[in-house]
């Protein structure tokens, strides 16, 4: 129910200039922005028509949102309608909303007119001018709504701060002259934390607080003080109280300050009570005499007492309280709540709705069967306890007889921190002796205790001692290192083999399929006969035979042997002149050493990664495959026709 009268969800109303910025920039963002005079005129027209239409719709939407979100005074509860009338002036409010509505219609009309004109636009310039004129006229209309919008924004901010009062629930209304203790009472019974000050009109608006009584949720409304003068002269602050009193069906607590500390005489207060009594009709009313710590009903003069008591007729009850001493507060609250609850139940019983519930209820009472008495069965232990309790009630010293509590035990046995609570003492076992027995720990279905050797420490010590003795006797001393010549040689060869294997493995790892490889001829040119000899020697051949073999299978002997060695050297070192035309490896060109080469290889791999991912043939492959292959997307899509896809 409360959510209906929650005005906190109204969206903020922007100022008229902000409003324009919002709408126009939305148009700019959400509609296409690029147009050229060379386009077809229909396209140009459509472009600008879209802009005009979009702007008009945005304005329309924003204004409609305002119109829908603000509460319509005729539709809300009369309490809220009246409160809003008091606070914001109904006429002004309606006028503002009406103007917004008119602006909405005007903007719609402008949009419609200019769309019609745009249909005859024959050039980009003309279309653009028409669009500009349309947006300008809409903006002018909106600019005129400056005051309405700012007023509505103020109303919204105030509405959001109104207390959310549910007009239909159980309610107590606290009213009376200013400074008689209304807010103090409110603070006593609820957690509302209303400001209390020793001057009049501290509370300037309605405040709501909540409390629980009889497991029900109650709301208490604290109202500003009212003075005793005609309705027309009342100001906004007082009118809020009057509104609450007039429209909410609640229990009314009229506060009277007999001590006259509030600055108003008892006569004044009672005459106010009499003058606003029509508002209390059909409501349980309490005349609450507050500040009894200062002045009670017995302390006042007899004629004034008579005045006060004469007010308490016709269903008005009197109650006394002192918020300062905290006396009578809860009693007053309970009295008011009970009276209201009673009245609400009566009202409900009078209505039609109750029948639908009553029809379903049936309280069955069995008839008397025979003359045998069947009283309630009460166990003797319970009866005994009851008598003991009664005795304790009667006699305060019987306190000693009550059973000792855990707290008493704690006090007697060293107090908190020393006393350790015995959790096992109430275990219910077959025999009470078992209570404090140690519970076996079971692991994998076996008792852990069974596997514990009590002598394990001793056994370990015994073992260590034996070890020490053996070590001292020299049992663990290793025999001398006696390695003969044969073994050392074998080890050496093995080591060399291992090294060699490692090198081969590394080489093969480094070798890359994509790496540029030397042709056989190049290899031959690059390798010197000495390398070959070395290689053969490493393989274990005799150095001389190796050299001769190298000579035999090496480069063919040619004229070169008769040549001048200096010329030979120059030739072999210069790349420019070569006897054999070989294809030069471009991947190694411009690179100084192997390290540079490996770096560049790595870079190349990285640069090709994306290409490979996209399955490109090379850098220049820009092919875009068919995005929507026709044979896959055309044709009927009803059942059974596209399963081939």
């Amino acid at each position, binding site marked *: 129910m409360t959510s209906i009268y929650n005005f906190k969800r109204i969206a903020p109303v922007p100022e008229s200039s902000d409003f324009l910025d919002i709408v126009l920039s939305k148009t*700019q963002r959400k509609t296409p922005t690029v147009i050229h005079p060379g386009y077809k005129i229909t396209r140009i027209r459509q472009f600008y028509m879209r802009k005009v239409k979009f702007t008009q719709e945005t304005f329309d939407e924003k204004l409609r949102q305002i119109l829908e979100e603000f509460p319509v005074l005729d539709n809300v509860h009369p309490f809220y309608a009246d409160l809003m009338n008091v606070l914001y002036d109904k006429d002004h409010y309606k006028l503002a909303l009406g103007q917004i509505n008119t602006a909405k219609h005007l903007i719609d009309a402008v949009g419609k007119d200019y769309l019609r004109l745009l249909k005859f636009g024959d050039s980009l310039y003309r279309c653009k*001018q*028409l669009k500009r*004129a*349309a947006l300008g*006229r809409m903006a002018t209309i909106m600019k005129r709504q400056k005051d309405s919008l700012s007023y509505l924004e103020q109303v919204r901010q105030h509405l959001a701060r109104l*207390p959310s009062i549910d007009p239909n629930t159980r309610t107590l209304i606290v009213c009376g002259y200013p400074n008689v203790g209304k807010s103090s009472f409110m603070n006593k019974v609820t957690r*509302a934390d209303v*400001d209390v000050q020793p001057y009049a009109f501290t509370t300037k608006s*309605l405040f709501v607080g909540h409390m629980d009584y009889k497991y029900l949720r109650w709301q208490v409304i604290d109202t500003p003080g009212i003075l005793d003068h005609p309705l027309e002269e009342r100001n906004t602050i007082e009118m809020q109280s009057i509104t609450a009193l007039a429209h909410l069906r609640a229990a009314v607590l009229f506060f009277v300050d007999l001590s006259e500390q509030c600055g108003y005489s008892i006569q004044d207060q009672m005459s106010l009570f009499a003058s606003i009594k029509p508002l209390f009709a059909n409501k349980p009313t309490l005349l609450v005499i507050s500040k009894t710590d200062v002045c009670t009903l017995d302390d006042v003069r007899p004629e004034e007492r008579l005045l006060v008591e004469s007010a308490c007729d016709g269903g008005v009850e009197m109650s006394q309280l002192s918020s300062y001493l905290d006396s009578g507060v809860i009693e007053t609250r309970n009295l008011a709540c009970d009276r209201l609850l009673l009245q609400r139940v009566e009202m409900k019983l009078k209505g039609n709705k109750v029948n639908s519930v009553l029809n379903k209820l049936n309280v069955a009472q069995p008839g008397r069967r025979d003359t045998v008495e069947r009283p309630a069965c009460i166990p003797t232990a319970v009866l005994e306890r009851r008598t003991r309790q009664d005795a304790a009630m009667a006699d305060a010293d019987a306190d000693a007889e009550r059973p000792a509590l855990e707290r008493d035990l704690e006090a007697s046995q060293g107090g908190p921190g020393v006393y350790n609570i015995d959790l096992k003492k109430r275990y219910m076992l077959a025999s009470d002796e078992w209570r404090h027995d140690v519970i076996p720990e079971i692991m994998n279905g076996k008792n852990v205790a069974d596997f514990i050797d009590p002598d394990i420490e001793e056994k370990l010590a015994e073992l260590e001692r034996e070890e020490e003795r053996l070590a001292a006797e020299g049992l663990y001393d290793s025999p001398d290192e006696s390695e003969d010549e044969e073994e050392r040689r074998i080890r050496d060869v093995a080591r060399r083999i291992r090294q060699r294997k490692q090198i081969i493995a590394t080489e093969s790892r480094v070798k890359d399929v994509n790496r540029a490889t030397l042709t056989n001829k190049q290899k031959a040119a690059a390798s010197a006969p000495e390398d070959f000899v070395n290689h053969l020697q490493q393989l274990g051949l005799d150095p001389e035979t190796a050299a001769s073999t190298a000579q035999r299978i090496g480069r063919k002997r040619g004229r070169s042997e008769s040549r001048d060695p200096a010329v030979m050297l120059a030739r072999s070192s210069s790349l420019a002149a070569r006897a054999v035309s070989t294809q030069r490896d471009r991947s190694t060109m411009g690179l100084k050493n192997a390290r540079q080469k490996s770096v560049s290889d790595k870079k190349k791999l990285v640069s090709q990664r994306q290409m490979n991912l996209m399955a490109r043939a090379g850098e220049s492959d820009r092919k875009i495959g068919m995005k929507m292959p026709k044979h896959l997307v055309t044709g009927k899509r009803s059942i059974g026709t596209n399963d081939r896809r």
Partner: protein
Amino acid sequence: MPQNEYIEESIRRHGRRLDHDERKRKKEARKVHKDAAFAQKVHGLKAKLYNKKRHNEKIQMKKTLKMHDEKNAKQKTDDAVPEGAVPAYLLDREGQQRAKVLSNMLKQKRKEKAGKWNVPLPKVRGIAEDEMFRVVKTGKSKTKSWKRMVTKPTFVGDGFTRKPPKYERFIRPMALRYKKANVTHPELKATFQLPIIGVKKNPQSPMYTQLGVLTKGTIIEVNVAELGLVTTGGKVLWGKYAQITNNPENDGCINALLLV
């Protein structure tokens, strides 16, 4: 539940944080820098809006500064005539003012003399036929093209009845027909929306006058009955001429200046 003036109430009860004023002062001091940084960073539509705003603010600020300067600066009063003997080189000082008035009067007189019938917009841009008319293809196979549609705003009188479509050469579309004009009275400096009575003359061509085409510079007759103008003889005026001062086809409305 927070209700009513709960923010102010909280401030009253618990006060603000201790560095509130300091923070506020610093924030304000930093604001100029922040604004400048934002102005440099922002781009696109937001930049346009923001720069416009800043521009206006600056103008306003300069104006106020100027006003303060004027207030502070000494100003010569024109009326103050130096008393007593005045040296020769100061004799013609206050004659200045009078001379100015005289010249204004002269100008006014010349203006009035310069002919009664000159209009606010003496020259207009020529409009070609193909801009004015759109060819409407007719015939069963859309081969005939003798029909024209006027693409400019027009005034069509109340009594106009269409010819049968077969013989109607010029079409004046309903969407482009206007009945009212925003007429400014040059002396009253006020604008009224007045009904158009007829088109007196379209400077482009007599044919356009006949068709009632409303372009810039066209003289129209407007109903000024609601202005309550009276002739020197005491008769109530109701028809008066006005010249169109805007391009109605671009603006979607007709603005005119009353010829008085």
